[in-house]
């Protein structure tokens, strides 16, 4: 069903609005099959919202999200659920089911979508947990895990069904350097071993750039720049240089309509 | 496994509630499992059956032998026709009388049967003619006042 076999996900003229604020206006982006794409941008530009739009959880106000040739808006609820078996999204907090054990959490997608016998499910779950280095936590409840460990278990769960496409929502936020390295290696290895298409959303620039092969920089609801990490290095846009590499001084205000600090303090 | 004990607890809960319902049915509401085969129907005509309601009891010598199932107005003779379901094991003579009595001082109305000496028995669908209507309090007071005033010279 792929009309454009090179692009796994596309956004065309995407416009998304919440109340009166336009979060994305006329957004166009393409994610190539087999790439690791890092979507970077300042906090608050709506990166998580973008992920939710890409997997169909949110509907765009206007414009289209095309996944593997299918426009998400055309799919029925059932077809959408079916498509989602090939996608996976790793949430910032892991989003493990708190009433199930670690083992049950990872087994969940297998139990739901396959009719595999119990002993096969057991083997698969243990293999997945081993690949994220947490096989010994199988019988613990999610509440007993640290944040980093929960995230790794969630990664095991996301990979349980061998998806084609995986999205990571702020995977590096709040991690200590060791867990950070473990995660980076995991993401890179998984990407290669399973021939996935990966999308990372983050504001941890250095880490994201170290494993990505394509970089998209979002700002003010639009794609500010697109290219490989090397191309980003050489980019001339001052915002890119400042955001990615820390060059420059002035911070961007959140809401451009606010008066300058001087006016607010002296004249109010 | 934890789910086994949960299932057992739920099972106990449901059984307890069902049992509770049974107790409510039998002990509290006095529901008696009575089929239609066990009763035969008799009619009684009363001048005034005020206060008598459907499901009121019908008793003979103080023992409940049946229930009132229907109360209608006979539009031709303007009397109240009461249909009663009597247990089959209770034969009533042809000259049985039926009165509407009050249980207690301000209690509910019920039908009291008084058996006669006739050798023939009432069959299903027969009508009891010898009846005593309900005592209406206002009429009683009216009678009392009337008799009192007619006494004094």
């Amino acid at each position, binding site marked *: 069903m792929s009309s454009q076999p090179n692009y796994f996900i596309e956004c065309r003229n995407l416009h998304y609005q919440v109340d009166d604020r336009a979060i994305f206006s006329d957004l166009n982006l393409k994610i190539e099959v087999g790439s690791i794409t890092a979507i970077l941008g300042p906090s608050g530009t709506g990166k998580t919202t973008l992920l939710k739009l890409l997997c169909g959880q949110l509907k765009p106000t206007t414009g289209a999200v095309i996944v593997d040739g299918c426009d998400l808006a055309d799919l029925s609820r059932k077809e959408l659920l079916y498509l989602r078996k090939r996608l*996976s999204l790793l949430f910032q907090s892991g989003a493990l089911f708190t009433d199930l054990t670690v083992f049950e959490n990872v087994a969940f997608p297998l139990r739901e979508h396959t009719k595999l016998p119990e002993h096969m499910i057991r083997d698969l779950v243990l293999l997945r947990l081993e690949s994220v280095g947490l096989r010994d936590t199988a019988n613990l409840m999610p509440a007993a895990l640290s944040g980093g460990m929960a995230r790794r278990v969630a990664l095991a769960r996301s990979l349980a069904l061998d998806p084609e496409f995986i999205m990571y929502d702020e995977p590096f936020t709040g991690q200590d350097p060791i867990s950070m390295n473990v995660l980076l290696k995991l993401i890179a290895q998984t990407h290669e071993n399973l021939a996935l298409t990966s999308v990372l959303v983050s504001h941890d620039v250095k880490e994201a750039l170290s494993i990505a092969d394509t970089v998209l920089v979002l700002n003010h609801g639009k794609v500010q720049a697109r290219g490989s990490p090397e191309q980003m290095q050489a980019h001339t846009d001052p915002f890119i240089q400042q955001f990615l590499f820390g060059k420059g001084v002035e911070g961007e205000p959140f809401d451009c309509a606010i008066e300058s600090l001087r006016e607010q303090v002296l004249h109010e | 496994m934890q789910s086994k004990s*949960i299932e057992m607890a739920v099972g106990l809960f449901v059984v307890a*509630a069902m049992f509770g319902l049974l107790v*409510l049915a039998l002990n509290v509401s006095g529901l008696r499992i009575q089929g239609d085969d066990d009763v035969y129907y008799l009619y009684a005509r009363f001048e005034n059956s005020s206060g008598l309601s459907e499901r009121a009891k019908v008793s003979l010598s103080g023992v409940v032998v049946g229930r009132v199932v229907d109360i209608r107005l006979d539009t031709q003779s303007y009397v109240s026709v009461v249909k009663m379901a009597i247990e089959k094991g209770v034969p009533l003579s042809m000259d049985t009388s039926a009165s509407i009595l009050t249980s207690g*001082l301000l209690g509910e109305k019920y039908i009291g049967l008084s058996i006669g000496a006739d050798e023939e028995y009432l069959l299903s669908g027969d009508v009891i003619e010898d009846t005593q209507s309900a005592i209406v309090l206002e009429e009683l007071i009216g009678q009392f006042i009337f008799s009192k005033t007619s006494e004094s010279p």
Partner: protein
Amino acid sequence: MSNYVAALGAKYIRVFQLIGRSGLFLISILNWGSGFKGPFSRLVKQVYHLGVLSLPIILVAGTFVGMVLALQGYYILSNYGSQEAVGQMVALSLLREFGPVVSALLFVGRAGSALTAEIGLMKTTEQLSAMEIMGVDPFQRIFSPRLWAGVVSLPLLTVLFSLLGIYGGAFVAVNMLGIYEGSYWSNMQQSVLFYDDVLKGVIKGVVFAFVCTWIALFHGWQAKPTSEGVSRATTATVVQGSLAVLGLDFILTAVMLGGF
């Protein structure tokens, strides 16, 4: 001035939108999915959480309510010399009104708020989103078993509440007030009708169960994913659920007694 009217109008429009949304929500959660084994075991687990865990409060409350009814009823009835009717009074009040209504109010407070908090928390920690993205319908897996568990549990709890109330009342009447045990029960048996009193009470229980559980689930689903949002949702469940029970009770009683 026109601003005020516009604001008022907007508020009412929002109320209707809310009702509409909750109606659509209800329709989505009625279906508990295909197959029998999986959905049934989920149902059983929820009946445990909603029904069995509510037993302590229901049983204790039922006993005390019955005992108080007997006490109060005795003193009122003795003014008319009809103390013997206390059994009838306790039984009818419980079966027709106190049983269904008080059980429902306690249910809303205990089980309803727990439901809303649980679902609100699942929403906050993105468990619902995660489930959706994994291709599992959270309406079928999470919401539907809870709805049907509520519909099953509350009528059962109501029966137990009324039962304990009647026996509690018996205890007080016979042991404390000196009513002859035989007359407590026989008076009751003569005036309580199974189809009219017991079953109608259970029917009320079913209606309350449906509405209360629906409200609890809806507010959990709608909660803003912050701690303040969840607490607001829980409060809304208890307040709206309680008011709904009382309002419905009036309507149901009017229909059952007067045949409107």
